[in-house]
């Protein structure tokens, strides 16, 4: 399957601030990919450029095989987008809001919209302005899904939600993913991603610096703690060292290495008289390291 989103050498600046800098990115079809980056890294700009809501200064963005900036109506009808703030029309109640948006969408499935509304506990007669943040976010998801898009793009969807609402929202995302929709979601909350996503793309200084499976990252990126009486040699024979802190009586290293090599390294250091501990890391710690 072709990647639903392809970005080639995309740059985008606002005034003097360069947000995307010759950025390359391909979204894998069928994946749930988390876009990670610190606040202000340009996650929103990347998402908007990828689906044609913002125009690249240079480079090309292709979505569902078409140039993002000149999307046909047919291609637009295959994309769902949930912006950071839901942007609902406050004075419409839930039922009328669904009907209103549905009227513009050729592929709108009203029965499916109604299914989602009941499943996600959205009261039909409540004005959208009166919905809780969690409800409003789920409502935005219904609006983005009822035309059964192949590609769903979510911008910090759960950032404003309390833990319970966030859990409900992410459960909804899991269901959507299980139905085969490719999902790209930006977040700075790793805990949300660990359940839902199978890949992460790390955005830093305007570029995707890492695009990998979460399992792969967890198997590769580890913390190696070495305790030793004598000073450690500068060269430990480890490849892929991300960072190294030499402390009194040992070192702490973050390593991005071949999973097969850790046992050997550990054995070698043990033979040299050191004590070695290799810690497996959660995504949060891995991301923190990759974002430094």
């Amino acid at each position: 399957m072709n990647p639903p989103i392809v970005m080639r050498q995309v740059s985008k600046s606002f005034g003097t601030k360069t947000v995307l800098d010759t950025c390359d990115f391909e979204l894998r079809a069928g994946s749930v990919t988390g876009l990670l980056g610190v606040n202000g890294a340009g996650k929103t700009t990347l998402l908007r450029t990828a689906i044609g809501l913002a125009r690249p200064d240079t480079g090309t963005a292709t979505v569902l095989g078409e140039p993002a900036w000149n999307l046909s109506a047919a291609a637009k009808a295959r994309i769902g987008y949930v912006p950071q703030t839901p942007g609902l029309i406050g004075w419409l109640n839930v039922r009328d809001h669904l009907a209103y948006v549905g009227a513009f969408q050729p592929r709108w499935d009203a029965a499916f919209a109604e299914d989602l509304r009941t499943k996600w506990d959205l009261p039909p007669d409540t004005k959208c302005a009166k919905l809780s943040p969690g409800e409003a976010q789920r409502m935005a998801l219904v609006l983005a899904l009822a035309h059964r898009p192949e590609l769903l793009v979510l911008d910090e969807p759960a950032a404003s939600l309390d833990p319970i609402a966030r859990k409900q929202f992410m459960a909804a995302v899991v269901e959507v993913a299980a139905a085969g929709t490719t999902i790209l979601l930006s977040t700075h909350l790793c805990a949300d991603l660990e359940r839902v996503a199978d890949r992460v793309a790390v955005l830093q200084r305007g570029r995707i610096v890492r695009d990998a499976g979460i399992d792969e990252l967890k198997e590769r990126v580890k913390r190696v703690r070495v305790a030793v009486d004598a000073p450690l040699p500068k060269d430990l024979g480890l490849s892929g060292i991300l960072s190294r802190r030499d402390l009194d009586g040992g070192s702490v290293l973050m390593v991005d290495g071949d999973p097969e090599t850790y046992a050997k390294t550990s054995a070698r250091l043990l033979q040299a008289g050191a004590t070695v501990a290799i810690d497996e890391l959660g995504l949060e710690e891995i991301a923190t390291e990759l974002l430094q």
Partner: protein
Amino acid sequence: MRPATLFVVQPTSGVPIYRQLMDQVLALRSSGRLPEGALLPSVRQVAEELQINAMTVSKAWSLLERDGVVELQRGHGMRITAPQAGGTLRQRLAELHPLLEHLAARAHQLALPRQDVLDALAALLPSTKDKP
């Protein structure tokens, strides 16, 4: 007990979720809680129950199939195979061994007295008489 509730995952752990699931199937099979012929819950059931990505479950199930722990029975799902010959107590112990090595190494690093470690472990083990 619904079949999917056999499993529990810790998403924030450094052990990938698919590994956690595989380890649990192996443990359930070794202990006989998933006997030969039992069906694994479907990818969808587990994904929904645990609210995790279905691809992760699917990856675990297909690796278990590769390892011969389960086999695909068309129209039914993944069926647990018989543990290989030489199974029984020895095999189950062998499965535990990597964890024990890890525990031993860590206990050594922490300079813990042997008896304290054994006591702490004993306290975690159920006291009921298990099947041999």
